[in-house]
């Protein structure tokens, strides 16, 4: 069972929820797809880390074969190529590795070479496998890292928790592609409701079963909950606003390992989620 945890912006409690659910559900797999700022591993402190590079293909020109016909420059949909003073300039950071230019070149002057854009680290803490994607600074897209990461992390039986990047961009779509269920984390504010509506659009687009968890919940007005009611979004649970919980989390601790109260809180959330997943996915399986 694969559960993706999403939120419209960073800092809503996405990692708090993902880390604690994975820690509770052991055996579990925790996948950190927030490749620009992966921080889940700081909580698990995994051991026996194995590291793999992630590469993309970029074109390389053989200047003696190139005759300056410019076919490649004209057809690159991303404008990653320019031809100046008898030289082909290739902008690696703009290139999307589509491979078209190498195919098109009438002179066979272009070949594809590997360029490392990031790494995947896999390790273990108790009975949780932790897979972390890390995008090297300055690289345009983390999508190839997420694709490799999800392959690496695929597990038949353990519960897999996918900690998605914040937002609703294509990198998030890639992260939820194979998920059986999406958990949308939000805050009980107007801003939270707005961000929730964006990720809600995304999961609806992908036709994914989902549920909402409201973090930092306080009694009283709750625009996020109102939004859920008005639009018929299932709220699976709430994490009450709790200073002690925030402090534990910001100190890099996994709350369920520290107190029975939090264990009970996240267990009830996990139960609610699993129940909902079984319910939602039952007709298909």
């Amino acid at each position, binding site marked *: 069972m694969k559960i993706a945890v999403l939120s419209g912006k960073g800092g809503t409690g996405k990692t708090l929820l993902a880390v604690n659910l994975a820690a509770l559900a052991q055996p579990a797999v925790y996948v950190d797809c927030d490749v620009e700022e992966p921080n889940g591993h700081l909580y698990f402190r995994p051991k026996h880390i194995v590291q793999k590079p992630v590469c993309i293909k970029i074109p390389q020109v053989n200047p003696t074969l190139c005759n300056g016909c410019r076919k490649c*420059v004209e057809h*690159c*949909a*991303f*404008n*990653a*190529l*320019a*031809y*100046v*003073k008898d*030289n082909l*300039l290739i*902008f690696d*950071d*703009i290139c999307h590795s589509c491979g078209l230019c190498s195919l098109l070149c009438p002179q066979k002057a272009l070949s594809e070479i590997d360029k490392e854009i990031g790494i995947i680290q896999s390790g273990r803490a108790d009975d949780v496998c932790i897979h972390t994607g890390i995008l090297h600074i300055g690289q345009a897209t983390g999508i190839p890292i997420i694709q490799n990461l999800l392959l690496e992390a695929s597990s038949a039986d353990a519960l897999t928790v996918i900690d998605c990047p914040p937002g609703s961009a294509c990198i998030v779509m890639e992260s939820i592609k194979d998920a059986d269920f999406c958990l949308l984390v939000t805050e009980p504010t107007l801003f939270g409701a707005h961000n929730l509506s964006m990720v809600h659009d995304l999961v609806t687009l992908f036709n994914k079963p989902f549920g909402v968890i409201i973090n930092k919940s306080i009694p009283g007005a709750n625009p996020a909950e109102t939004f859920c009611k008005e639009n018929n979004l299932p709220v699976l649970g709430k994490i009450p606003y709790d200073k002690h919980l925030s402090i534990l989390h910001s100190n890099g601790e996994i709350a369920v390992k520290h107190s029975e109260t939090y264990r009970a809180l996240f267990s009830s959330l996990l139960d609610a989620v699993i129940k909902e997943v079984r319910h939602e996915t039952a007709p298909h399986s």
Partner: protein
Amino acid sequence: MKIAVPVDENTQNTNVCVSFGRAPYFLFFDTKTKQTYFVHNSAASSTGGAGIQAAQIIVDNGVDVLLTPRCGEQAADVLIAADIALYKTFSGSAQDNLDAFAADKFSELDDIHAGFHGHGGK
């Protein structure tokens, strides 16, 4: 010498466009023949790498000097590879900028990222 300026409109009294890669037109002025012409910037509507494509247009028009309010890192790479000198415009009409350039009142563009090490004019 041929000078290029990113501009808002394809008319003689147009203003300098605030953007380089996304400028709707480029104005080209030949100091020898005193001829001016405009070229539509096909990069303006492209989804990515607009600066590179725009710079390619400048290069392909055989420009020696580009007057522009700013310029991205990659566009600068293309322009510098083509030995095009970059100078910073002030806001206002393209003509005022061309006049000021002719009167030698211009400073080189230093508005690119750190990788740009000023490329000699002339």
